[in-house]
C-alpha cells in the first residue's frame, strides 16, 4: 500500500505539470489581460496534432518537431488574437464566448484534416525507469523535466526582464503602465500568443505519451482553470503548484475512491477555494 501511495504521489506530480502548463497559460492571459481564453485546450490540440504529423507523417525528428509545432501554434494564436480577441479586450464574457466559438472552429478543422480516428505517435522513448518505490515511464519523465524547465524559465523572464516587469505593471494598473511607456497593445498580444504557445508545447509533449483525439483539450482546459484558480490568478509558480496539487489529488484519490469520480476532485476544490479563499492558495492575501 505504501508503495502504491508513494508511487501515485509522484505520478500525480508528473501529470500535474501538464495541468500546470495550461494553468500557466490561463493565469497569464487572465491575470495580465483580463480575458479568459477557453480555447487554450484547442490550441493544445493543434500543438499535439502538428507534432504528431511532423514526427510520424513528415518524418522530422521529434526534438525538432516540438519547437516547430509550438511555432505553428503561436502563429495561430497571433491570428486569433488579431482577428478576434483584439475586439474583446476586457469584456470578460464576450471574450469567453468568442473563445468557445473558436474551439468549435478549431476542432472542426482538425476533424476535416485528420478525422476522428485516434492518432498514435510511434514511441519516442519506450521503457520505464524502475526506482524502488515507483515506476516512471521514461518519456513521462522527460516531459516532466521539459515542462518544469519552461515554467521556471517563464518565471525568470517575468521577474527579471523588463518585458516581464512591464507585464506585471500592466496587470496591476493598465492606465499607469500605458503612461509609463509600456506598449500595452503589444503586451496583450504577446501574452495571448505566449500562452497559446505554452498550450501548444503541452500538446506537443502530450502527443508522445497519449493517443490523440480532436477533443483532447477540453478536459485539460477545465483542469487548467481549476489549477489556476486553486493557486490564485497571476502567480507563475503558483500555477505549477496548483497543477501538482490537482494531479496528486486525482492520482491518490483514485486509490481510495472509484476512478469514476476522478474528475470531481478538481471541481470540489474549485468550489471550496473560491468560497473560502478566493485569492487562491499560493497568493498572499492583501
Amino acid at each position, binding site marked *: 500500500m505504501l508503495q502504491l501511495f508513494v508511487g501515485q504521489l509522484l*505520478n500525480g506530480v508528473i501529470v500535474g505539470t501538464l495541468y500546470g502548463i495550461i494553468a500557466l497559460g490561463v493565469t497569464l492571459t487572465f491575470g495580465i489581460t483580463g480575458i479568459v481564453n477557453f480555447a487554450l485546450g484547442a490550441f493544445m490540440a493543434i500543438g499535439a496534432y502538428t507534432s504528431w504529423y511532423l514526427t510520424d507523417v513528415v518524418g522530422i525528428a521529434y526534438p525538432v518537431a516540438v519547437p516547430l509545432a509550438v511555432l505553428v501554434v503561436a502563429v495561430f494564436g497571433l491570428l486569433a488574437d488579431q482577428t478576434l480577441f483584439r475586439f474583446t479586450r476586457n469584456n470578460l464574457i464576450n471574450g469567453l464566448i468568442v473563445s468557445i466559438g473558436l474551439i468549435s472552429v478549431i476542432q472542426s478543422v482538425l476533424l476535416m484534416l485528420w*478525422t476522428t480516428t485516434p492518432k498514435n505517435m510511434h514511441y519516442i522513448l519506450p521503457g520505464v525507469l524502475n526506482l524502488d518505490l515507483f515506476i516512471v*515511464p521514461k518519456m513521462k519523465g522527460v516531459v516532466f523535466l521539459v515542462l518544469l524547465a519552461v515554467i521556471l524559465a517563464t518565471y525568470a523572464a517575468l521577474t527579471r526582464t523588463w518585458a516581464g516587469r512591464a507585464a506585471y505593471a500592466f496587470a496591476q494598473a493598465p492606465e499607469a503602465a500605458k503612461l509609463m511607456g509600456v506598449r500595452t497593445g503589444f503586451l496583450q498580444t504577446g501574452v495571448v500568443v505566449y500562452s497559446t504557445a505554452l498550450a501548444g508545447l503541452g500538446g506537443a509533449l502530450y502527443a508522445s505519451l497519449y493517443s490523440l483525439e480532436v477533443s483532447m483539450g477540453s478536459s485539460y482546459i477545465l483542469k487548467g482553470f481549476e489549477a489556476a484558480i486553486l493557486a490564485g490568478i497571476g502567480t507563475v509558480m503558483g500555477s505549477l503548484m496548483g497543477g501538482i496539487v490537482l494531479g496528486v489529488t486525482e492520482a491518490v484519490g*483514485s486509490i481510495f475512491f472509484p476512478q469514476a469520480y476522478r*474528475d470531481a476532485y478538481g471541481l470540489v476544490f474549485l468550489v471550496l477555494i473560491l468560497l473560502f479563499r478566493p485569492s487562491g492558495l499560493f497568493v498572499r492575501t492583501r
Partner: protein
Amino acid sequence: MFAAATLATCFGIAPAKAQDVVKIGEIEAQTGALNTYGWMSSQGMRMAVEEINKAGGFEVAGKKYKLQLLNPDTQGNPQQALIELKGMLEQDHAKYVFGPFLTNIYKGIEPYATGFDGKFLLIGGATAIHFDLGKAQHGYLMRSWNWDAGPSGFGSLMVANLKQRGAKKVAMLMQNDAFGHVARDIYAPLFQKEGIQFDEEWFEPGTTDFSSVLAKIAAGKPDYLFPGYSDAVLYDIVRQATEVGLTKIWLVRGSLGPGLKNKDALDEYIIYIPKYFEEAQNTEPKVKKFIADYKAFYKTDFPYDQAPLCSSSCYDHVFMLVEAMQKAGSVDDVAKVKQALMSITYKGLWETRYDETGEEVINFDVVDIKKGGNIEVSHFTPK
C-alpha cells in the same frame, strides 16, 4: 414566419420518384466522441450503394431499381436522430433504415419507431436492441451484430478458453457508460460460472491517463486485464498497462492496433475480432476485392483497424437486403422482406444470417498476439 417557409421548402417538396428508387436510410453518429462504429458503417454503405447502382441497379419482380442512401449525421444526439428519422420515414418514405449502433440514440428513437411498427425495418447494432427483439410491437426491429452471450456468441467461448489458460483472476477496466455497464452485466456472470474472480473499475469516457487506476489494479495482481471497448482508450490503456507490469490483455471489442504497437512489452493480447483483415486479404478473394475497391473509392489507405466493424449495418447488409427484396419479390412489402432476410444466409465478407429473434449470427476470429508479435488466429463459424 418566413423562416418556417424556408424550412418547408427545404424539407417538403422533393418530387417522389418512388417508382425506380429504393431509399435506404442510415442513422449513425458519424462525428462525435463515440462515432467509430457509425463511421465505418457509413463508409461501407456508401460503397455498397455505389457499387450496386453502378452495375445498373437491381431487378425485383421484373422492374429495375436503384438505391438512394440517406445518411444524416446524428452526432450522437438523440434529439437530432429523432428528427432525422422522422424525415426519413415521413418525408422520404424510406422503408429500410440501418443503425443505430449507439444505445442512447436507439433509446431516443425507439418510442417513435415503435409507432411505425410494420411500416419499416430498423436494422441496427446497438446493444439495447437485443433486449427489445421479439417484444410486442417491435417486429420492425432487427439487430445487425452478434450477441456476446448467446449460444452462437463468442463471449462464453472466450471466457471458457481463458479458464483453460489457467486464469484465476481478471480485472475489468471499463467506460462508465451504457455499453460498459451492459458488458459488465454480460461478462460478470460468465466469469463467475467459470470460477474466475472478477474485479471491476470504471472510468469516464475521455480519460487518457490511466496510470493511477492501473497501478491500483496491478497491486491486486490479476492474471488478465479486460479493458474498455474502443480504440480511442485502448491504445492508452494497453501502453500504460505494460508500464505497470500488466502484460496479459483480454478483450472483446477494439482492434489489434494497441496489441501490435506494444507487442514487445506484452505477453498476451487475446481479442475477439469479427475478421482479421490482414490475413483474410490473402485467403479470401472477396476481402481482397473489398480492400482494393475501398482504396479506389476513397483514395486513402485501408483502415484495417476499423474494418472489422463493417460486420454491422455496413457493406454486406446492403447486398443482403437487395437479395431479400428479390427473394420476396417486393421492395415495399416490409413483412415479406423481413421474412426473406431471416431465411437467407448471405456469403459476402462474412457469412451472415439472422436467428429466430432477428439477431445477426456471423463467423468471427479470435486473435492471440504473443510476445514479440507472433499472431495466432482461430476461426469460428457458429452453427
